[in-house]
């Protein structure tokens, strides 16, 4: 496999930054998953696609808009009607769907090289993200594992809540550096650490 380079590399500076004298309230990192897939079901085939995702990843997607689940290594969430993002730390997830996701069920698009995954964690993660996106980040409105599609100044973003105070954001690779720099600026006031 060709080694994948991060678009964030020139601006990725591990360490503490911003107003961290009073503590670090946000931790930023790039998770660099090996596989990022987009799966879309034909109308009426959503349940078969969801059972296919379960068969391949072991992730049981809940019913309902934006429902999702994460087990640490693998994650999946709905981002549009009949469409799901499935992420794996390991490479090669797309080939695992061969024979499971048949053309009669839907389609698979491998976006592993097209998206950058950014993780924001910490007690002020909701606060910082609320400066970017006009959606409700409170836990009752955005439950654990759930996904949301939204955008920030034309940078389309898919966001999954991977734990109570942690979010994984998937952005276009070509916009990732710009988004990362904006995220760093927005995190300065609360004190942030890049890992």
């Amino acid at each position: 496999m060709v080694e994948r380079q991060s678009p964030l590399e020139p601006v990725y500076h591990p360490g503490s930054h911003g107003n961290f004298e009073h503590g670090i309230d946000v931790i930023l990192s790039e998770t660099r998953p090996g596989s990022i897939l987009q799966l879309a079901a034909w109308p009426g085939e959503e349940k078969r696609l969801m059972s296919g995702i379960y068969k391949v990843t072991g992730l049981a997607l809940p019913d309902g808009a934006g429902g999702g689940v994460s087990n640490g290594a693998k994650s999946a969430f709905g981002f549009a009607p009949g469409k799901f993002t499935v992420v794996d730390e390991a490479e090669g997830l797309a080939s695992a769907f061969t024979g499971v996701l048949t053309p009669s069920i839907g389609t698979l698009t491998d976006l592993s090289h097209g998206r950058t995954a950014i993780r924001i964690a910490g007690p002020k993660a909701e606060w910082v993200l609320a400066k970017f996106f006009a959606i409700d980040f409170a836990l009752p409105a955005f439950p654990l594992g759930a996904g949301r599609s939204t955008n920030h100044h034309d940078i389309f973003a898919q966001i999954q809540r991977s734990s109570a105070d942690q979010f994984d954001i998937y952005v276009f690779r070509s916009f990732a550096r710009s988004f990362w720099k904006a995220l760093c600026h927005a995190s300065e006031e609360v004190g942030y650490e890049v890992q």
Partner: protein
Amino acid sequence: MLITCPYCGPRDVIEFTYQGDGNRERPQPASQDLDAWNAYVYDRLNPAGDHNEIWQHSGGCRAHLRVVRNTLTHEILSTAFARGGHKTESRS
């Protein structure tokens, strides 16, 4: 202005793209009825009140929606997926 996407829930209008009047009836592609094509391309009700519209949630789930919006107050009266092909009935 907030539009409640049937999938994503209430979102700011900035996430949506207006896709035109939802009252238009597109003639069959082979139709040579010039009056029908003329009506499809040019005729608009332009009401001062409830209006059937097509919107796309382009900054979210990207679904096309049937929206009834009041052109005087900008109140969104109903939203539904456009895929069903059914016109959304306006409130009045």
